[in-house]
């Protein structure tokens, strides 16, 4: 378990819900639209304080993980309001305890800006997805707009001390981890994106490439 990351998000859990008022209203419709595509047994990565549970379609069987026990403690209070099943587990996305091919869908919201080893984490998600399974991501990435991208590079060393890295190439990382892109949509500028990708059923697994 990455205790440094865990501590950072334990600390962040104190103020995390302060941002839900505006985020729910401005970004909620985009999350709901993306999550409408969830099918089958679902892994929700980095559940945080459970603020995104309300955007999940009803009736799902969801396993929600987070590295921070303090986040999960807050999320536990929100599971009762969900019309379906949510199991909460403390887990590092880079060291998933699930067998291979366990899930039909993986969903993430602003997660891979914060995972210190994003490709390792994405390869783990590739492993636990069934062949033909999908990953649905609502993520912020580095802007390709020159002046904005430079600012994001400049700010990342400061912001990442208490929050995420804001200059990640998550679309590229998804492909590097072995997923095939199905759909990418810009939600705000080219910074906030809805990313849909699939694990092809070929049996090729980048995690085993070196073997």
């Amino acid at each position, binding site marked *: 378990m990455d205790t440094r990351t865990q501590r950072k998000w334990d600390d962040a859990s104190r103020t995390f819900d302060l941002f839900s008022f505006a985020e729910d209203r401005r970004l909620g419709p985009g999350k709901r639209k993306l999550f409408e595509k969830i099918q089958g047994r679902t892994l929700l990565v980095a559940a945080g304080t459970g603020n995104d549970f309300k955007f999940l379609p009803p009736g799902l069987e969801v396993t929600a993980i987070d590295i921070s026990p303090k986040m999960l403690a807050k999320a536990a209070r929100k599971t009762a309001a969900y019309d379906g099943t949510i199991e909460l587990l403390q887990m590092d996305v880079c060291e998933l305890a699930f067998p291979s091919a366990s899930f039909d869908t993986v969903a993430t919201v602003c997660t891979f800006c914060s995972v210190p080893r994003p490709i390792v984490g994405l390869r783990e998600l590739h492993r636990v997805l069934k062949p033909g399974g999908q990953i649905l991501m609502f993520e912020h990435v580095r802007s390709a707009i020159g002046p904005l991208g430079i*600012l994001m590079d400049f700010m990342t060393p400061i912001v990442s001390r208490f929050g995420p890295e804001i200059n990640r190439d998550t679309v590229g990382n998804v492909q590097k981890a072995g997923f095939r892109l199905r759909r990418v*949509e*810009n939600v705000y*500028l080219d910074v906030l994106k809805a990313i849909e990708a699939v694990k092809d059923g070929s049996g090729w697994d980048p995690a085993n490439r070196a073997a």
Partner: protein
Amino acid sequence: MFFTIGDYIAGALIGIVTALAVRVAVSPGMDMVIAILLGLGIGMLVHLLVGLLLSPLLGMFETMMPAALTGMYGGMLFGMRDSIAAGSATLRAAATVGALFGLIVVMAMKMYDRVLRGTVIDTGE
């Protein structure tokens, strides 16, 4: 509507605070390179502080992206101007230009967002 008006007010506020802070820190005759770097640092601090205060009301992304542009690029421009006393002689004038800069940045970001928003890859599956 609340968020649109809020975005513009936030942009103007960050522009005003940055312009005034730079005006206090940079005096005419200061080395322009130092003044620009100082303006950048001040803009960074201002946009982080004011942006984080406004984010719970207006949203993290929609506040911080224009705030970063206004604070940091605006800070550099204001620093350059103030080091050679090239206009905006009074605090009020400096604040007005700061507000105008912030409003224009927010407007540009909204236009850019409209252009960029939407599907960029779709395999049709």
